């Protein structure tokens, strides 16, 4: 039944189906399992399912609670859920459950807590960091059945939705009232609000409007011990610790959101979109800097380099200016009088930086055409390369020319091509490392180039992820950015929510950690610590 669901595992079903982040032939893959990648035993198709008695007992209990059809144990059905949008990691879960109410989610989590069984939450499965990668001995809790928009209250600038609601549906529901939901990850037609909350999803318009965390005011969550708790609320500034702020972006390691209250944003009075073509990436970077320096905060500033433009042309014939070394898409929105003044300023700054052609979208159709090339770029790269890796790193925007140059150098030295498609305004890079998996060892070398790009980001004071999350894929890079003490401090929060470590274990944190029995007090060694399997914090 799950395979019939447009919003669930159907998107990543089967081993050959592409991940949503890479919709065409160039499925992002890599052959270098990171340390901590699940054992191959769980991956081999055809292996008879060996379920522990604990899982069998749990399945029986959950069937009583949820009903027969909402608990999947058949191996073929389970395999539908073996990966999220990052298809290079695959693990078949021990059980998949499809709860329909918050109470059912809580009952499942409580059953997991009672049995000491790990659980992983999954929305639409579009994540690009393996955050919803199942646990081989655990339960995958799919929230896509919780898909009601519970309230749209334009007068309060709020909507209340269930976690399985698709991002774009929130805007559609608010639009008749003149409002929309601002965070717009490029997967917004299929990704779920619950997943957005877990990953603190971003999008092209973050520069002006911020991320999911700036647009969620209240949550109902199921804590890892199975309790329903409300965090935040309808009104701003709920007293007490901002646990809502800690929860958003915690990638399913602090519990599962079962209801989300979001802020609705007034649709802007005016939107203007322009496309400026430059001979070089440096010129486009200079234009970006000049726009920001002039005090303009556009809704979006997106850049594509020559290779990305080439790919987009091949895929969607977006008719970008020929001979462009880089194109910028700049979108301005707001009151008409402000937008007009800023638009003239931006056009002039692009000209001064060396734009050889500037196009302005005359209407919504032309605006969509400009965006089509950008939005299709990831998938389009599949047309010019058998395989590619999607990277997600952040740098201070002033370092753009330097870092882009060095990315080119690093890739060139290793014989790879890199296409750059990214959010220039906030320095959020998405270098796509092109490779051919049929050549022995190339996937591993592409992976190491992609990793080197993250190191460049950190070297320039940036971040290892701007919007895709840490998940399974980047946990090993966390020590690049954070000290052991920093990670230990994050783990204190984890232990406050989930002392038994059952919520999405193995994600975000680079090393397995256990929580001390008494808060903050380092007592006798934990059995697992003695066995050398983990550190106590």
């Amino acid at each position, binding site marked *: 039944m799950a395979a019939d669901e447009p919003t669930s595992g159907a998107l990543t079903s089967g081993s050959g189906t592409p991940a949503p982040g890479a919709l065409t032939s160039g499925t992002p893959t890599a052959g270098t399992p990171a340390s901590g990648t699940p054992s191959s035993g769980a991956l081999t198709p055809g292996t008879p399912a060996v379920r522990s008695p604990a899982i069998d007992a749990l399945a029986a209990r959950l069937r009583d609670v949820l009903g027969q059809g909402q608990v999947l144990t058949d191996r073929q059905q389970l395999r539908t859920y073996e990966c999220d949008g990052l298809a290079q990691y695959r693990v078949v879960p021990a059980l998949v459950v499809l709860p329909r109410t918050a109470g059912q989610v809580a009952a499942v989590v409580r059953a997991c807590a009672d049995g000491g069984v790990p659980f992983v939450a999954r929305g639409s499965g579009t994540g690009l960091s393996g955050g919803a990668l199942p646990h081989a001995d655990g339960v995958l809790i799919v929230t896509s059945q919780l898909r009601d928009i519970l309230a749209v209250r334009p007068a309060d600038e709020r909507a209340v939705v269930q976690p399985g609601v698709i991002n774009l549906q929130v805007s559609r529901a608010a639009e008749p009232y003149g409002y929309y939901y601002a965070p717009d990850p490029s997967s917004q037609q299929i990704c779920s609000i619950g997943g957005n909350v877990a990953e603190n999803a971003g999008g092209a318009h973050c520069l002006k409007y911020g991320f999911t965390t700036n647009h969620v005011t209240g949550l109902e969550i199921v804590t890892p011990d199975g309790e329903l708790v409300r965090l935040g609320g309808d009104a701003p500034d*709920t*007293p007490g610790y901002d646990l809502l702020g800690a929860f958003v972006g*915690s990638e399913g390691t602090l519990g599962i959101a079962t209801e989300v209250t979001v802020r609705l944003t007034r649709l*802007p009075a005016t939107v203007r979109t322009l496309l400026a073509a430059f001979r070089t990436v440096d010129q486009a970077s200079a234009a970006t800097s000049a726009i920001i320096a002039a005090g303009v905060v556009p809704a979006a500033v997106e850049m594509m380099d020559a290779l990305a433009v080439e790919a987009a042309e091949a895929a969607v014939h977006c008719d970008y200016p020929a001979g462009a070394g880089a194109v910028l898409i700049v979108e301005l929105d707001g009151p008409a009088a402000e937008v007009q003044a800023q638009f003239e300023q931006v056009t002039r700054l692009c000209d001064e930086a060396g734009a050889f052609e500037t196009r302005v979208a005359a209407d919504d159709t032309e605006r969509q055409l400009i965006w089509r090339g950008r939005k299709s770029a990831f998938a389009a790269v599949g047309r010019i390369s058998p395989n590619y890796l999607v990277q997600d790193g952040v740098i201070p925007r002033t370092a753009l020319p330097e870092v882009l140059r060095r990315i080119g150098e690093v890739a060139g030295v290793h014989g790879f091509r890199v296409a750059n498609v990214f*959010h220039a305004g906030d320095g959020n890079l998405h270098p796509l490392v092109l490779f051919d998996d049929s050549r022995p060892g190339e996937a591993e070398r592409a992976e190491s180039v992609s990793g080197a790009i993250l190191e460049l980001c950190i070297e320039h004071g940036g971040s290892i992820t701007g919007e895709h999350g*840490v998940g399974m894929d980047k946990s090993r890079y966390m020590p690049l950015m954070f000290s052991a003490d920093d990670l230990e401090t994050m783990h204190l929060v984890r232990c406050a929510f989930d002392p038994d470590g059952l919520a999405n274990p193995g994600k975000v944190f680079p090393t397995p950690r256990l929580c001390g029995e008494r808060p903050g007090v380092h007592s006798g060694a934990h059995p697992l610590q003695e066995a050398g399997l983990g550190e106590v914090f």
Partner: protein
Amino acid sequence: MSALDDLAVPAGDDDHVAGVPAHLVAAPADTAQAAALVAAARDLHVVIRGGGTKLHWGPPPRALDLIIDTRRLTGVVEHAAGDLITVVRAGTPMSRLHRLPGQQLALDAPDGATAGGTVAANASGPRRLRYGTARDLLIGITVIRPDGVVTRSGGKVVKNVAGYDLGKLYTGAFGTLGLITECVFRLHPEPAAHSFVRAKAPPGQAARVLAAQPAASALEVHAVPGADPELAVLLEGTPAGVRDRSAEMARLLDGEVSADPPPWWGAMPPGDVTVKLTGVLSQVPALVATAVGAGATVSGSAGAGVLHAGFPADGGDPHARVALLRAAAVRAGGHAVVLTAPDGVRPALDMWGPVPGLALMRRVKDRFDPGHRFAPGRFVGGI
């Protein structure tokens, strides 16, 4: 000699917190010194003090040995104008950050307030409507945990989802989870022009303002018992744009365009009992009406649903008034938090009121500060 011996001096007459005197005061000069001090103070009950503009907010500490004063932790470490960020030490005055060259930290704060104190108290003002609050503008933070360990979270780039966003946890924690020593903020360009539109208008008109899409930077209400309520709107942008939008707004509200804000702009209402009231936007008029009906002066953001009510403690039963305001705030989908009250009134008030998720909050506190030594009793639920 420990850092405590090096840095701590006997407390003076002014070194008290909500009426509770401290024994010692120490003012570290940098993060390393602060970490050594906190580590050396492992057996002491500590309250952190910045500019002291909000030190009288909230319940008094259950115990107080040491005040850590952050005002020597001062200075802008970095202002990366091209990246629209700044790195500042916690004791840096907010007034300095309001006037960085060409840019600003768009977070309103009273004179004398520090960056760290503003974050710790989650204070905000009129411009929150456009720019958000500390939780939206803080992108990185350095905190010394109660066990003396220096930890960082976030970073120096605005877009960053690596690891838990602990900056939000420390924001508004009232110093109960550790000592903030450094903050990284997102900045905004100084607008080329701005103007105010002022009008005598009932708070219900706020909805019309929001519906008119003026992209207002602030939408404030001010209501005094026995007088006509007022609205004031701040518009920012290009000179031509601001001129047009202001004129349009003045027509809409039947008000006047003014270069200056009204005298009550961004100020706490008078009265020795002050209460922060929140509610959903559609309930703001009802909330204002209830507060004014109870004899309170009300100021605040009608655009965000965050108000402050003030009244004299001797003008009637303050407990009954707080109960009335709290009931109204709950009806409005929000909360009523008593910020200030005279010493004689405070003990009998539930200043924070009921809070959702309190059990989880206690567990967070227990992990960070198992000895309950940082600002004990100052926070929600006696945390």
